């Protein structure tokens, strides 16, 4: 259930951004989450819905784009999408690779209700 920690961090970061942009209520928070983070969508929504109560994010919904894993072979440099956990290079057969994508955990944008008077 690391989703609770993630939801809490989303809440805190969003509140931070709202404050810096003159306040307001968030309607939508757009995320990018890499598959290697092992985030369970339902668990994240569940945690977020509990934590957002009585905050400026009370009406906010989470939306996200899942980023597939991409790794680069340590031997020949070929980039590929791993099929299973063994990360065997389809080009040279070597095991072992560096993560190129799939570890994202970012807030991409926040939609705020109505207009904004702030700058």
């Amino acid at each position, binding site marked *: *259930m*690391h989703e609770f*920690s*993630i939801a809490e*961090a*989303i809440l*805190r*970061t969003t509140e931070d*951004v709202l404050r810096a*942009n003159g306040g*307001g209520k968030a309607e939508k928070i757009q*995320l990018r989450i890499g598959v*290697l*983070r*092992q985030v369970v969508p339902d668990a994240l929504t569940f945690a977020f819905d509990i934590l957002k109560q009585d905050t400026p994010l009370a009406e906010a919904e989470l939306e996200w784009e899942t980023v597939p894993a991409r790794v680069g072979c340590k031997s020949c440099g070929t980039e590929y999408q791993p099929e*299973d*956990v*063994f*990360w065997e290079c389809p080009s040279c057969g070597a095991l*072992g*690779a*560096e*993560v190129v994508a799939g*570890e994202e*955990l*970012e*807030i*991409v*944008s*926040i*939609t*705020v209700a*109505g*207009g*904004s008077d702030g700058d």
Partner: protein
Amino acid sequence: MEIKVVRRIMEMNEQHAEVVRQRLREAGVVALNLIGAPGSGKTSLIECAIRELKHEVGIGVIEGDPDTTRDAERIAQLDVPVVQINTEGGCHLEATMVLRALDEMNLNGLDLLFIENVGNLVCPVVFDLWCSTWARRTVWLWSAQRRGTISPPNTPPCFGRRR
């Protein structure tokens, strides 16, 4: 109105991780973050290491558990400094918790710090990705005979990852 931001969600954890890293580096302490299934032998390994090494290197232990001080009591019997973190049901340690634990521990005279994570093969690993330098090494334990059918393919990020 849409506000475009690209903010890493775990920024705070990463910042605290950086403070942990700096403190350990200044004190010349190598930290090992032990991740393993419940019952895989994390505490036993630490006990063994203490018995073998404590006359040659200064060892400290941070014990992470959802509840109780049982593991910390086991370690304390071996006469090394130990701080217990109770996560109150939480499934992993975060850098902020480790930072608080470091406040309670005198790093002078220490060379090696064991951080025993909560027994879990998923969540602690995910957090470690976010702060891969907060412990300078991570040790993964896997005890197949005790955990029945659990195996590396069940928990890929724990075993199939870069070191």
